[in-house]
């Protein structure tokens, strides 16, 4: 940037160093009244403090935000100045015009500060998110679980009876494409942010923990209510989606720091994987770089610890109030591996609970609080298995996600003051196009792909009526393909030996097809359409379908930005009414 500025200055002599400052929160931000947030103005060059003014609706910013202003003449690693106000807040709803001036240059942004209604519509909110949930996941789960006769489904998923109420735009502040950090962060803070960022706006300095923070829903609940908070995921609990309920970092990979942030907020129920980041580094299996023992710290803070399904069930009978359940050093295994194939890490962790077990335990604990609760349940393996195009695992996990939603629907029958939201955070480029029929003639697998009339219907069975197909390797199964992929061998078959790993990296840092699948009968090489640095299929930019039922669900409608969803959640809880 410096050399560009120098070049421009040499040719035109008109460019000011302070031209085009950036103000965080960004233009068109929506901010919950009285919620603390960091404001930052990044000037494009070094400016003098006496030349700088930052005003909000014409008044000094520090006066409106109620916190001291800090001027940084040269930010670390950046030849430019900044103004920072930490943890300020705005007391009254309305439109706020922010002007940052350095000499003759002015940057203007507008914020909308909103209040909630005075009366809560819902006492409890249960927010279900299947990571990467796309329309094909729902269709596939229904076909696998219920079957179809003469074009009509033989049964309905729980999802099928929750009204779809909005299309959600998932794009990031820095790209039309998106990831699970910024998407969930938008849901959980009301502010959009950049890819890989959680609970912060992404500033220009290298430090990933100094970026301007915004309040998370967990922090807002702690600040304004006595409600309980639960976080449930079948991925690492410090992974992006569950982390976004509580955390603040520019980089979702700061998993050790995120565990510390979970500890600061202390959600009442924490169930998931990722124990490696809770263990001190001297314990084999730890992924920390320090000696902090978060298992001991949570225990000391009054948490019951559960490390497998049996211990989790036992915590339901105790009256401890707080549960930390960690069931794998990494992500929990998929439903297909846990319950049927016994692959993945099931040999190491044979008694992992599933999303249904965890949701049941969480609801049992959280519903003891007469003040109500907020529970976030993530079906993370839908995404973890859609990246490597392991559609059988992704669809069976979607079925389990649906069963977990079913528990909440049952709960709401006796607790009608419960808002249930079911959504994805982004989509995948996945579609079901027919069937793969082993009994079609020939040896070439592509000739066995049934399309249009020749697709017929899949022949999954569910003899024991548990909602899961008895086996996924049936002779006429769903044909599912991704719109985007690295080089890989398409086998047209379920991966019974463990989750699919389509591509591996070569010495040029390019992903090439994993030759472990080359010898599968009928496998064909598909040359990728993604850049060669893409390890697996990527997220789609397509809208997400949001479904909701219960009090407050009427706030969702039409097209909404992901950040707009937060407002409906806090409105339902009436977290921050306007003060007279």
């Amino acid at each position: 940037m410096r050399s560009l500025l120098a070049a421009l200055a040499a040719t035109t002599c008109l460019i000011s160093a302070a031209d085009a400052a950036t103000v965080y929160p960004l233009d068109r931000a929506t901010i919950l009244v009285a919620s603390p947030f960091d404001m930052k103005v990044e000037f494009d060059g070094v400016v003098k403090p006496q030349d700088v003014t930052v005003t909000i609706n014409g008044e000094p910013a520090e006066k409106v935000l109620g916190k001291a202003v800090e001027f940084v003449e040269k930010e670390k690693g950046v030849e430019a100045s900044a103004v920072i106000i930490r943890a300020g807040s705005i007391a009254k709803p309305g439109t706020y015009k922010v002007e940052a001036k350095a000499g003759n240059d002015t940057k203007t942004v507008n914020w909308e500060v909103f209040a909630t209604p005075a009366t809560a519509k819902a006492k409890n909110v249960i927010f279900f998110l299947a990571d990467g949930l796309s329309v094909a996941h729902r269709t596939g789960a229904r076909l696998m679980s219920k079957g179809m006769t003469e074009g009509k489904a033989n049964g309905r998923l729980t999802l099928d009876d929750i009204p779809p109420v909005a299309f959600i735009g998932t794009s990031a502040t820095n790209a039309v494409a998106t990831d699970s950090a910024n998407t969930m962060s938008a849901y959980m803070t009301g502010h959009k942010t950049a890819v890989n960022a959680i609970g912060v706006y992404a500033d220009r300095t290298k430090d990933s923990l100094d970026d301007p923070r915004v309040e998370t829903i967990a922090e807002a609940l702690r600040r304004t209510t006595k409600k309980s908070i639960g976080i449930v995921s079948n991925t690492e609990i410090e992974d992006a989606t569950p982390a976004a309920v509580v955390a603040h970092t520019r980089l979702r990979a700061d998993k050790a720091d995120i565990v510390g942030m979970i500890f600061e907020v202390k959600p009442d129920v924490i169930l998931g994987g990722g124990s490696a980041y809770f263990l001190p580094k001297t314990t084999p299996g730890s992924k920390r770089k320090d000696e902090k023992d978060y298992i001991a710290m949570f225990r000391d803070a009054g948490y019951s610890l559960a490390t497998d399904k049996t211990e989790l069930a036992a915590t339901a009978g105790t009256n401890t109030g707080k549960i930390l359940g960690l069931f794998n050093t990494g992500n929990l295994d998929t439903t297909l591996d846990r319950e049927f194939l016994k692959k993945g890490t099931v040999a190491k962790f044979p008694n992992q609970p599933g999303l249904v077990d965890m949701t049941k335990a969480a609801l049992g604990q959280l519903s003891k609080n007469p003040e109500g609760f907020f529970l976030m349940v993530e079906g993370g393996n839908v995404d973890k298995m859609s990246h490597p195009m392991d559609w059988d695992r992704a669809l069976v996990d979607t079925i389990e996600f649906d069963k977990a939603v079913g528990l909440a629907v049952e709960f709401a029958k006796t607790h009608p003051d419960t808002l249930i939201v079911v959504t994805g955070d982004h989509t995948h480029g996945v579609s079901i196009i027919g069937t793969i029929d082993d009994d079609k003639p020939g040896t070439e697998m592509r000739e066995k792909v049934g399309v249009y009339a020749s697709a017929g219907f899949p022949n999954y069975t569910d003899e024991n009526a548990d909602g899961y197909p008895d086996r996924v390797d049936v002779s006429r199964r769903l044909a599912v393909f991704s719109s985007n992929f690295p080089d890989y061998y398409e086998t047209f078959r379920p991966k019974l030996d463990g989750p699919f790993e389509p591509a591996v990296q070569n010495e040029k840092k390019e992903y090439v097809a994993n030759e472990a699948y080359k010898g599968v009968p009928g496998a064909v090489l598909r040359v990728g359409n993604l850049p060669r640095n893409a390890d697996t299929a990527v997220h789609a930019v397509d809208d997400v379908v949001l479904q909701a039922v219960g009090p407050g669900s009427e706030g969702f409608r039409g097209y909404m930005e992901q950040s707009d969803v937060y407002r409906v959640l806090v409105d339902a809880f009436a977290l921050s009414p306007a003060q007279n």
Partner: protein
Amino acid sequence: MSDLPFNRRTVLGLLGTAIGAVSTPARAASSASLDFDELYGKVSVLGLSFSDKVKALAGKDVRMRGYMAPPLKAEADFFVLTEIPMSICPFCSSDADWPDNIVVVRLRSAQTFEQANALIEVRGTLEVGSWTDPATGFVSLLRIVGADFHAI
């Protein structure tokens, strides 16, 4: 996603320190073979424990087969040995993570990267126990040092 500078820095730092740290052990005529599924005895959510075999082989000459996770440079004297080819890149992807059972390999001298699809055999001295690289903070539990490798 591929926009995470942090991990890349980590590896660069490790490469830098590994150069000075390589030793040349006296090599025994024969070495004990060690498999990935023999590394840990007890595996639990609250931590792993090294197997008796690993404890017995600490400081001794071992052979291990596995796959070379791609280092940053084709010519490197440090790399990570994995049980299966790495289908994700923890050095470059923001949500990727190393498997639990990696082994850090420090070569006697730099060797050229083998294709990720190729099984290799590493031979060197087994180092056991948590060790934090002072330059980068990278924590490893098992290392094979003074090592060399060849494709199978």
